[in-house]
């Protein structure tokens, strides 16, 4: 479904991605783990079109999208939940969710999807009229996920969804991710919580200084001595 070949990206003269190759098949949950500054977020932003590629190729369902603007990628059913939630703090919770459906025009469909989001994330229904900036970190993470799901993505890019959350919230986030996978959403998950990510992932990639250093099934990486030492704290 998603194929990344020899991808490079720069911030000015600094090269952040050094020839990255990644593949995500339809229906898969693929995790990308690695330390701070490894280039995980840059890779995700390059896939969603927020960061420019300086070389290589990003293909989605066979179509070259390397130079496509971010908005058009959303129309192809690619949605991103950004690191740090990035909700619109002054807007109400409901307006934030509705914004996720900006590529849709069928009002009936949007209303039905909104109700579905309230069913999945009941806390958002309770807070629907409050400014998003008043929500706690966990509530904002639910909001960011609901907003992304409103576009009915077939490929969901998740950037550090568990960052800074309590253990019970981390558990809830991963439970939602598993549910989405069971419902057929293809997921590319970037996480520093390598243990949790690799436990739910079909496959994983380990990234170091802008390069993929290791790849394999989630289970294989969980048992890999190098991964254990570097990322799992074992």
């Amino acid at each position, binding site marked *: 479904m998603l194929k990344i070949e020899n991808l490079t990206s720069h911030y000015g003269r600094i090269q952040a991605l050094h020839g990255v190759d990644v593949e995500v098949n339809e229906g898969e949950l693929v995790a990308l783990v690695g330390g701070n500054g490894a280039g995980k977020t840059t890779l995700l932003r390059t896939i969603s079109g927020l960061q420019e590629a300086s070389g290589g190729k990003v293909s989605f369902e066979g179509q070259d999208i390397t130079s496509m603007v971010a908005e058009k990628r959303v129309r192809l059913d690619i949605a991103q939940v950004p690191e740090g939630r990035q909700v619109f703090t002054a807007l109400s919770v409901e307006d934030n969710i509705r914004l996720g459906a900006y590529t849709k025009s069928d009002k009936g469909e949007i209303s039905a999807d909104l109700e579905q989001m309230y069913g999945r994330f009941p*806390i958002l229904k309770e807070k629907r009229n409050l400014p998003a900036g008043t929500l706690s970190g966990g509530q904002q993470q639910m909001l960011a996920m609901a907003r992304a799901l409103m576009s009915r993505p077939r490929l969901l890019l998740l950037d550090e969804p568990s960052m800074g959350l309590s253990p*019970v*919230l*981390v558990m*809830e986030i991963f439970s939602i991710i598993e549910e989405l996978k069971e419902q057929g959403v293809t997921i590319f998950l970037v996480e520093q919580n390598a243990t949790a990510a690799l436990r739910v992932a079909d496959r994983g990639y380990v990234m170091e200084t802008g390069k993929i250093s290791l790849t394999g099934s989630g289970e294989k990486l969980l048992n890999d001595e190098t991964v254990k030492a570097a990322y799992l704290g074992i």
Partner: protein
Amino acid sequence: MTKAINIMKREHLSLNTVLHVLNQLVLDLEAGRLTADDVDYELFEKIMNYIEEFLDTMHHPKEDQYLFPALLKKTSESNDVIMQLQEQHQKGVEHRKKLEIHFQAMKDKHPGQVEKVIDALKDYLQAHREHMKLEDNVIIPLAERVLTPEDWAPIDEAFNQNEDPVFGDTPKNKFRKLLSDITFLAPAPIGLGGRRK
């Protein structure tokens, strides 16, 4: 890592997250941030329900019936520890029931119950921590060392039933829902702070 160990570790992790919510309750009661009137008894009931149905009914019996006998058959190295763990499994049920009685008394505004709840909760949390530490640091490494793939087969199968959505009352989905309810009710930032006054 065998299937059973993987599941056991995941189940310990789930339990730890729920205990973390209980621990916050202790801290809030102790610091006076919560009074007996403010306690969310529905949240407490959900947590106790989770512990009873998940830990006391599914997790511990699998250890007692499959993992421990396999280890006892293979080595005498862990006899004392296993006896200790089995005793803790039994006492855990008694402690939970005692805790529920104290909570009910606090809800009914019996004098001095807040302190009793705090003490009982602290004991309960500490007992779980020590119990899991023994299993994670002694039993699981020993089992990985001495049990053969043939020994693991029935243990794997038993623990897999905890996760298999086609087994019995779909425990995986049931516990997922319970955990989700606990997360919803637990006050922010620990949980989502749903339906707060």
